[in-house]
């Protein structure tokens, strides 16, 4: 892929395109955050529903799994006649790919909440809604956030494909670099995507630790 006769990186090009880089990085983050947030909004009720009603679990995950297997580029092409070359088209694709991971982890997280904890909560007079928000969701958080981490990292990778319809964040650099045989852009896009993925992973991990202080406290004792 690397073009011959061209240096790997032209640093002066990078320093001359600072604002472009920031803009595309910003777009990449924006596309990712929207995709994961909307994915979560859709997955959460579906996950809770599937957790409570086992018969729903199979069809829901089958559908999410089916969407997941459609090649991303093909999905964009299918959507263009309907939603055009817009951010909506990219987001529909990106959101679809988060669903399987998120729903699975939400259900797995809720399944892991010990029955005796739910029983004692009910016995003390918590309503079903209070049990969900005050007991089940907090205790499922480690598994749910693990799902969000995987979904986020895979979305950061997928966003680059959006470059084919002009909404690809850092993917735009990669595509342009490929079209113009310009190594600097290819490497810049790829490296920044990877760095962004690492950052996202680290931030979410920190967030998870912050939200679930009891996990480390308890592990500390048994260790």
């Amino acid at each position: 892929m690397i073009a011959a006769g061209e240096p790997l990186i032209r640093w002066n090009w990078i320093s001359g395109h600072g604002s472009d880089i920031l803009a595309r990085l910003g777009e990449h983050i924006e596309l990712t955050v929207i995709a994961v947030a909307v994915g979560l909004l859709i997955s959460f009720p579906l996950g809770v529903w599937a957790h409570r009603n086992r018969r729903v679990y199979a069809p829901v995950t089958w559908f999410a799994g089916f969407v997941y297997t459609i090649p991303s580029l093909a999905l964009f092409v299918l959507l263009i006649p309907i939603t055009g070359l817009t951010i909506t088209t990219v987001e529909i694709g990106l959101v679809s790919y988060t669903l399987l991971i998120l729903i699975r982890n939400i259900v797995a997280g809720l399944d892991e909440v010990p029955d005796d904890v739910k029983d004692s909560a009910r016995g003390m007079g918590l309503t079903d809604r209070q049990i969900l928000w005050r007991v089940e969701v907090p205790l499922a958080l480690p598994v749910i956030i693990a799902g969000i981490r995987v979904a986020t990292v895979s979305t950061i990778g997928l966003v680059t494909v959006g470059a084919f319809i002009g909404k690809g964040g850092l993917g735009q650099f990669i595509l342009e670099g490929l079209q113009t045989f310009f190594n600097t852009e290819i490497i810049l896009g790829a490296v920044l995507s990877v760095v962004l993925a690492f950052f996202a992973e680290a931030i979410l991990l920190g967030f998870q630790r912050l939200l679930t202080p009891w996990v480390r406290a308890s592990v500390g004792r048994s260790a």
Partner: protein
Amino acid sequence: MPEWSGFTGADYDVGAHDGLGRAARGAEAVTVMISLRDVSKHFSSSAGNAVNNLSLDINEGELAVLVGPSGCGKTTTMRMINRLIEPTSGAIFVGGSDVMKQDPVMLRRGIGYVIQSVGLLPHRTIEQNIATVPSLLGWDDDRIRARVTELTALLDLDDELLRRYPGELSGGQRQRVGVARALAVDPPVMLMDEPFAAVDPIIRARLQDQFLEIQRRLKKTIVFVTHDIDEAIKLANRIAILNFGAKVEQYAPPEEILRAPASDFVSRFVGAERGLKRLALISVADVEIEPGPVVQRTGTQDEARRAMREAGSEWVVVLDRDKLLGWIDWWMMEGGRNVAAVEPREFAAIVTPGSSLRTALDIIVQSRTHIAVVVDGENRYQGIVTLDRLTAELRP
């Protein structure tokens, strides 16, 4: 909150249920706090009824233990009281009101609930766990904090534990937090499902003792489920021995169940050593203490010999007024000496009125005598218990 006061349910004489005349609690009227009337529960997954036509009353301030083999329906019975399980038929009254006519959530907030695995919320600190129901009821922070402080003192919990998470506590500490949490809003009724089963025997015994002490002070109405008959005997005011389908084989104070098991099922369930277990429940003060042969330190030899002859013994208890000095026998007074001239020997077996007959038996057997002397805390002589008296108690 459910209204507890003003209940004028069926009053009856507890004396009628008390097989022992000598317990003599008199004819004080008691109030029924929990009443199950012809309660049945059918689970669609099984053929028979898990609970079949059960009727049971539990008095205010009483600790009633439901005991029986696993699968007998004891836990199902308990869980119907706070509507964690809905009865198929029949009625349940708590504090005089029909639980089926109450909002289950509010009903449960007014009833303490402790389960075997405790079920503390792992993601909340000990303080937050204890404060669960007060918070649900909207108590303000100061009131909650004051109550948590009270409960940590009551259950002898370290203040430092309050900021910890349940995962950082030992099994025994978790059980105590579970009890504290159930007591948080001072509910008149508590449901406890094998609350001490998950810890080792030494800690369990300690938790039981502590719990009994608290219950003596607080006088809650408690339904306590266990499969351990010894735990039931130790804790209960009354034990309901349940057969399959929650059929009540016998519902009586522990002493009566051990003395007069109502059926083969009950005898088998309470097991061997029934007599010894029963002796552990009766205190020396509960039985007739014999006066024994007694002489004052200032007494003459004739007085001493007369006391021995009358009692048919070869020894006599020597007292200084009402204080116990020891004993002397026939031969120690050879040569016509008066009592004061002989140095009395110490008794090997001494018990107090509060000692159990089991302890008395143990002391007598170990000291290789046939009697134990009973003295109070200030060494005042009360009388003697004999081995014969204890064996008579073993075979009623």
